[in-house]
């Protein structure tokens, strides 16, 4: 298959929530190395509240993202709330009126999210933040689309670039967020926000790919 419907995408939310909940300790631990050790707590809190808010299921991926963004922006605070809140809100806005999410729609969604984030954050690639994941991941996805790869391949390219971006933060000195106060001493550890962002993008890619596969299996049978 080449697309999932916006409705089918709704369940991606639960995959994201589970991924964050499962990695709560891991995210706090890496934040603890150079930040204040609460990144997992913050993420888990936002995504867990979102789960309650979603109830059985959101209407669509767009609707789910909007609820998640609302929770992040009104209840989470920190840097995380506005950053991820803005990311999910702008992505939701972009696909709000889209019925089928194909590789083009997904690409527009990613691009919009990345741009809104860049407008808010001031941090650029190399500053050891979530930007070091979102920027290369979005670029890799876009390039894969330009190379006319399949939706699944584009998603895999995005996830791969996200992982590379995350790992690249290990050698960077933080310029934003609490870790930036460590300056040179912040090198040697991956960035917590980069890790959570990578986790989100990877989970999204996997979740959509699973759906594409099962939809294909369904239509084959």
């Amino acid at each position, binding site marked *: 298959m080449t697309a999932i419907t916006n409705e089918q995408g709704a369940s991606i939310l639960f995959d994201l929530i589970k991924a964050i909940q499962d990695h709560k300790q891991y995210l706090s631990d890496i934040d603890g190395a150079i930040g204040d050790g*609460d990144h997992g707590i913050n993420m888990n809190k936002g995504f867990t509240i979102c789960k309650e808010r979603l109830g059985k299921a959101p209407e669509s991926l767009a609707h789910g993202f909007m609820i998640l963004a609302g929770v992040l922006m009104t209840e989470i605070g920190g*840097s995380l709330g506005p950053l991820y809140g803005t990311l999910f809100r702008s992505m939701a806005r972009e696909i709000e009126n889209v019925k089928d999410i194909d590789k083009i729609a997904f690409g527009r969604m990613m691009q919009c999210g990345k741009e809104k984030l860049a407008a808010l954050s001031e941090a650029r690639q190399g500053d050891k933040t979530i930007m070091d994941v979102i920027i290369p991941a979005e670029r890799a996805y876009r390039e894969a689309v330009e190379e006319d790869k399949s939706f699944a391949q584009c998603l895999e390219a995005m996830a791969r670039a996200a992982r590379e971006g995350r790992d690249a933060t290990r050698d960077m000195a933080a310029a934003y*967020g609490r870790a930036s106060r460590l300056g040179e*001493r912040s090198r040697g550890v991956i960035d917590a926000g980069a890790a959570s962002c990578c986790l989100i993008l990877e989970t999204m890619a996997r979740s959509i790919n699973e759906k594409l596969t099962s939809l294909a299996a369904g239509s084959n049978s």
Partner: protein
Amino acid sequence: MQRIFNRPEDMVNEMIEGFVRAHSNLVARTANPRVLKYRQAPVKGKVGVVTGGGSGHKPAFIGYIGRNMVDAVAVGEIFTSPPAQMFYDAFRAADGGSGVACLYGNYAGDNMNVKMAVEMAAEDGIEVKTVVANDDVPSAPKERRDRRRGVAGEVLMWKVGGARAAMGGSLGEVIAEAQRAIDNTRSIGIGLHPCTIPEVGHANFSIEAGTMEVGIGHHGEPGIEVVPLETAGAMARRMTDIILPDLPFGRGDEAVVLVSGLGGTPLMEQYILYFEVEKILEEKGLSIHRSYVGNYFSSLDMGGVTLTVMRLDAGLKECIDHEADSTGLR
């Protein structure tokens, strides 16, 4: 962790409950449980003064709600900026029709959340202007003052902004006065032992016994140097040597001095440091107009102190001397 709480995740809400109940003569709740306001706010025609930030800094921020002080405060989780929605709700609670001065500290989260809240308020026709405190000298070189953190100097900024608003200043005047307050204020902290976020359960940085961390931040952000623990006199010398040349303060300047404990350091020791600071300021020819010593802006149970010095001019002096009433400061 030898601390008093029920569940770590409830600490902020329960602290708010205790605070509102203990001080119902001065503060009141709003529809948003994480936004508290001065009982009398909003005062029609008066510029509203708002601040907010992460919890764990008591009496900051809610302890500065009061008469001729702060009108409304957005209360975040421990060491975490309140979400935009809370700042927005605080603006609404404080707005008496003449606009709102949001006087807050320079942290990435607060910057983003306030920015978003200001946009939300603008859509409602509430004019909000901001001053971003950046009094913490060690957090960035002078050329990058825009990147410096806001620390205990915020207390003086609130006092000044609150007073100017109470005197009937326009939004522009309140903002200008608060901006001048922080532009004339310099701070530095020294950490003696780390703090522990109850939800984390262990300190996420350490200060070796027998050493002290110069320039430490209010959340344990690393300082500029870890040096062997010094006498009060040497500490005072080190702190003043860093902050006085930065403004610079000079002979004949009138100053306000604020020594704040970080939470785990007894008041007695703060007075001992104050004595050393005052001797140095006198030696440098500054005259001290007013002094504050106590836990004015803390960091959970962290050990250590911050030193803040503000240079006065006629306008700032008028504001500092203006009568005020809040649980944290008169």
